[in-house]
């Protein structure tokens, strides 16, 4: 099993997903096996950052001092062109169906993926 590629969860400006060479399934949550067929060592790949907005929720009430400093912030689910869904932040005026691209911003002491409308 190769080491996990650095991604935003490790502080790097990257979104990493896994692709199974046996069944072709793509998965976002990192595992040492394919959750669809169980084959070991799915390949790690860097995502392009291109996606479509699936759902949004503008958070206006946060529960910690660190996150409260950022309200309101827009939590989004996006469907990436690579075929997996992920949660991130995005512009407050994003609508479902918008084509978006990923950038990175600091949030509550961490670097997180942030989606903006494709220019």
């Amino acid at each position: 099993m190769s080491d996990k590629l650095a991604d935003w969860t490790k502080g790097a400006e990257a979104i990493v997903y896994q692709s199974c060479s046996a069944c072709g399934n793509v998965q976002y949550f990192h595992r040492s096996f394919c959750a669809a067929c169980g084959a070991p060592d799915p390949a790690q790949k860097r995502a392009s950052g291109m996606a479509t907005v699936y759902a949004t929720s503008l958070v206006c009430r946060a529960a910690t001092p660190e996150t409260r400093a950022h309200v309101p912030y827009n939590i989004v689910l996006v469907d990436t062109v690579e075929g997996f869904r992920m949660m991130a932040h995005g512009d407050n005026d994003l609508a479902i169906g918008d084509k978006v691209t990923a950038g990175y911003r600091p949030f509550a002491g961490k670097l997180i993926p942030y989606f903006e409308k494709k220019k």
Partner: protein
Amino acid sequence: MSFITGVGLTSYGKHEGSSSLDLMSKAAETAIADAGLKRSEIDGILCGYSTVSPHIMLATVFAEHFGVQPSYAHAVQVGGATGLAMTMLAHHLVDAGVAKHVLVVGGENRLTGQSRDASIQALAQVGHPDYEVSLGPTIPAYYGLVASRYMHEYGVTQEDLAEFAVLMRAHAMTHPGAQFHEPITVADVMASKPVAMPLKLLDCCPVSDGGAAFVVSRERTGATGIRVRGCAQAHTHQHVTAAPALSELGAEIAIAKAKAASGVAISDVRYAAVYDSFTITLAMLLEDLGLAGRGEAAARVRAGHFGRDGAMPLNTHGGLLSYGHCGVGGAMAHLVETHQQMTGRAGPRQVRDASIALLHGDGGVLSSHVSMFLERVR
């Protein structure tokens, strides 16, 4: 075969100075007395969890505290679906002869035992620790995401969702144990503080103290038997990021299996008790369960369909939205109210006919589902 032979419920709201064990004990005592049993006759205990007082062996902590020595006991954790999951397990336990009388109990001082921030934070941890929680979501945000998509796909509006909050409040006003008794309007819901859009404060259930319990027995102990006719579960995912399409969620799977297990059709159902952590939860589940057509649940609320005198009375105690939500006990109140209705003991809230009831619980972010049919036998 199994019967719900007794139920117990505290008021929900503030119980200053009461611990989770106190609230569990109070509800348990009421339920055992309601079943006409003695404590010593309880030979099985299933309990939920307490976010205020976490423990790796809560069932035996409770059993010792309460003063019983069961032959079967453990905790169950399925989030908001815990109450019905425990009932399903108790049904199978007594049916298999493992125990005669299983006490199912939940209770928590979630409102006064910790800060509201602490409750919100504890619940947000149902999210993925690496890929979700670090983004600062809350439970309302997880459901806000689902709501935005549901509204987009089925043309549901924020005003539609508000109808469910108004209905639950109207029902709570007729129950002395409910946390909220002030009437609200759709305009009040729309004007309430934004929490996680499209969900506003009055779209969200409150944090409460409270306890609920029931006894599930192999034989009925009273003249009227409330029998578990059939039940089923479905678990499609844990995290909202990994949830299937709206048309493939677990409620539809669980209800299909429960119908097959019980031989009951939706057209047979006379009373509904459906999980309502948020207005969107209730709207979606009613439609997933087949109690309303897609995108049509709000219109049915407006037409009085789900009112006490309507064709399908729903959560007549006020639900999580207005009776209150103390964690595991929260949705157990739905079953207690169903039992009161089925046994004709709901007083001013009594519906005409609650001979067959459908109950549905949801845990996580529409992750875990339990559907159950109860039937009155004389």
